[in-house]
């Protein structure tokens, strides 16, 4: 074999061995930790493992935990490939979940109501708000046109097509605004049929939008997306918290959550697709087709990254943005696209949780999903296949944690500690293992 091929094989080996060794080491330290606090490590680890994989039902719970981690893991991994640290997957997940929860609830709900055109919403919110926005837009347009037309006619003529397009857009939006009630009434029936795709699209858009702002700030102004996305996480969390206290969005009852989504918006449980022998066990969990969606998206991300022009450019930007730019790749655009896709993936993860698991947007369901997603992406070496495997690992850990909580007196936060240790060991990468393991000749 040529030296290049040997190096490639070695590189691949390192790619797989490194995370495995890191996980093993973290587990070893956890073992010691359990023992140091006076508990039986074998018992605790035994509970962990059996809780994760011990029975069909447990496996179902594990996979249920895995599902959102696939989404957030892919989200973070994709962003990493473009050289971006998307710590904001959690906030994007919240945005997507909320959007899905809204659409999943409202569309079926409205479909059952007659006289949609007479909803108080139109008179109190839609028309005033729209009138305000449209007049402002019209005003700005007029002022700009008048100013440029009179001061710089040459430039005005050059921009005539833009002006024309602006006017046409304005016209279309105005028409849509005026006829919105009628359109809604006419199409709500159809919409209700397609509520799942609609919810998913809404979730993806919401997640993308929540990620777009830090993305644009990074692309245009060079503001670090690290701190920004963390801030946006807090904002999303507080926003959601607040909305769940308002009468518009909170369902009656003691639990802070939105009203339940319509039945047609629910993601089918995977239990209905498996052989009868295990069906009953799985039915106890909320494992749903969202899991399959996650797998499909993992494949999609892989195809995007390595088979498309957009993926090529994204990875180039992640490898060396300066060189990419010098070679004509629109770096700013790539960054924004990467963040939006990343946000969309996280948003879809939120949709799965709302549509498949909780069937409503429940307060604080999202805690930890974003940060765990970072761990998943890292351990999975930012590769779609790795992300899926690593998501299973972390899903197992989380499920095991619940079991530990139930069956032993040991604090379940052990899992968080294990996660952090895994990240440390993977992040120190080859450097650490080269010092600990003997040199391969």
């Amino acid at each position, binding site marked *: 074999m040529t030296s*290049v091929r040997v190096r490639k094989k070695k590189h691949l080996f390192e790619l797989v061995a490194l995370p495995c060794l890191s996980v093993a080491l973290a587990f070893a330290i956890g073992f010691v930790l359990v023992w140091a606090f006076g508990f039986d490590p074998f018992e605790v680890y035994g509970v962990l493992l059996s809780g994760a994989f011990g029975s069909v039902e447990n496996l179902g719970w594990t996979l249920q935990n895995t599902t959102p981690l696939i989404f957030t893991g892919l989200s973070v991994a994709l962003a990493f490939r473009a050289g971006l640290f998307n710590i904001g997957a959690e906030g994007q997940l919240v945005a997507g979940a909320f959007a899905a929860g809204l659409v999943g609830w409202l569309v079926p709900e409205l479909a059952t109501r007659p006289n949609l055109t007479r909803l108080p919403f139109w008179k109190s919110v839609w028309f005033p708000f729209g009138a305000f926005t449209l007049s402002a837009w019209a005003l700005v347009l007029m002022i700009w046109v008048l100013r440029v037309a009179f001061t710089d006619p040459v430039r005005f003529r050059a921009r005539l097509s833009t002006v024309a397009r602006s006017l046409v857009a304005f016209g279309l939006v105005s028409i849509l605004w005026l006829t919105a009630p009628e359109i809604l009434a006419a199409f709500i029936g159809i919409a209700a049929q397609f509520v799942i795709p609609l919810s998913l699209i809404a979730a993806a858009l919401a997640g993308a939008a929540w990620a777009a702002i830090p993305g644009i700030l990074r692309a245009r102004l060079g503001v670090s997306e690290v701190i920004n996305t963390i801030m946006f996480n807090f904002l999303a969390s507080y926003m959601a918290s607040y909305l769940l206290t308002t009468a518009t969005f909170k369902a009656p009852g003691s639990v802070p959550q939105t009203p339940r989504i319509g039945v047609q918006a629910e993601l089918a449980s995977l239990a209905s697709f498996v052989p009868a022998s295990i069906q009953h066990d799985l039915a106890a969990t909320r494992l749903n087709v969202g899991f399959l969606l996650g797998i499909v998206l993992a494949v999609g991300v892989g195809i995007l990254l*390595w*088979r*498309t*022009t957009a993926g090529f450019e994204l990875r180039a930007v992640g490898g060396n943005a*300066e060189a990419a730019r*010098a*070679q004509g790749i*629109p770096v700013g655009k790539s960054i924004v696209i990467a963040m939006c896709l990343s946000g969309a993936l996280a948003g879809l993860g939120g949709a799965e949780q709302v549509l498949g698991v909780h069937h409503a947007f429940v307060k604080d369901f999202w805690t930890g999903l974003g940060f765990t997603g970072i761990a998943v992406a890292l351990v999975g070496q930012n590769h779609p296949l790795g992300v899926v495997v690593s998501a299973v690992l972390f899903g197992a850990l989380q499920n095991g944690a619940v079991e530990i909580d139930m069956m032993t007196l040991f604090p379940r936060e052990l899992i968080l500690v294990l996660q952090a240790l895994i990240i440390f060991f993977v992040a120190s990468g080859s450097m650490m293992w080269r010092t600990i393991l003997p040199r391969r000749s």
Partner: protein
Amino acid sequence: MIGIHKSFKRVTANHDASLSVRRGEIHALVGENGAGKSTLMNILYGLYRPEKGQIRIFGEPILDLSPTQAVQKGIGMVHQHFMLIPPFTVLDNVILGIEESKGLFLDSSRIERQIVELGERYGLKVDPKARVEDLPVLLQQRVEILKVLVRGAKILILDEPTAVLTPQEVDEFFKILRTLRELGSTIILITHKLKEVKALSDRLTIMRGGATVASAETSDVNEEEIAQMMVGRPVRFAVEKEHRPPGDVRLALKNVSYREKGRTILEGIDLEIRSGEILGLAGVAGNGQSELVLGLMGILPDLKGEILLDGRSLSGLSIRARSEQGVAYIPEDRLKHAVLTDYSIEDNLVLGTHHRPPSSAWGWLDRQAIRSGAENLVAEFDIRPPIPDAPVRHLSGGNQQKVVVARECSKEPRFLIAALPTRGVDIGAIEFIHQRLIELRNRGVAILLVASELSEILSLSDRIAVLYRGRIVKILPTEEATESGLGLAMAGVV
């Protein structure tokens, strides 16, 4: 230094290298890029440890040399890329590592006085309180030398010190070196500029392929002989180039200027390059060449004035759009602008055209087409190793540059900018690249060649323009150009 042996992983940098320098002489260490000169000197300075060999300084054998020890023994090194902290003052830069304190706080007054005194004695005047980032390169170099002198260096190692100086500044610099020699210092000069070797050194040692191949009194050898020993075979200094009448004006620059942070970097640039012509842009680094080139490419967007390619304006076009108009570019900073080191050879070969057929269609990459295209180019340009999916990181500098040249040539450009195209490239690849440039010229491409080596400019260009402080101060056909005339122009004397 006797029988020095040093390798890095699988690369042998020094193999049985020996060097002997007499007290009080200026000794030139000559060789081309990669010959092992810098490595050998880094060993002498204690930065690297050799696997085999002996080092004796002033007769005393030294084991386990470290930089601190080397300094103690009187060795000082001025690196090719300055080791300065830009936001710090000159004084802070000099004291770093040898700070003196009064109680808890720093007290640099003694060293400050020493800097002033040394400045007078050797002609190295600098303001100790000035911030290094505000100083021109010439003065920054003085700071580097002062650092070494303040530490009491008797043996000075200078690594390619004239790379950043105009010919006139080089003369000034030589005066300083001669003063140093008169006052008792020993100087080892690492260089590949043969004219300087002849002008300045007393003796020289030639390195090739990690070994020392010869040692001589400078007066006993001439430049051709030195070059031959450097390369191991007779070297062609001139490139064969047939005279061709140039075609129509392909690229025109009219009154191009550029300001950055209030400073004028380029002003009043008027240039025309015809198809089938190589215009060489001469000038010391830092006079606006980089900005002109980056501006032409669109990487720096704010060039004012007209830039016309075949009559069509390039201003305002994105980098990709310019590329589609037929502009190609060999960047001066390969790693920063030209290649993605973690990508494979084939991916780098389509970088820039990856979004168009044949490499892609409707957003999908056609890996077959990319692979076969790469295989052709790898064969045509003799890129080693000839494995299209090898990461570019594993290639030598020369081969990396060949990838860049292959890519730009394959775009069939109408206008090519070659900025320092042979920097960090070994001689075999240099000849190859020069051939390619001539070939493109013969096929009617207009080429702007930016280089700092006058020999390269003189041998390749049809016409030469000199850039000084952002202005074209001289422009003339190559037949009428002389090195000294160009040198004067490069220093602003027209």
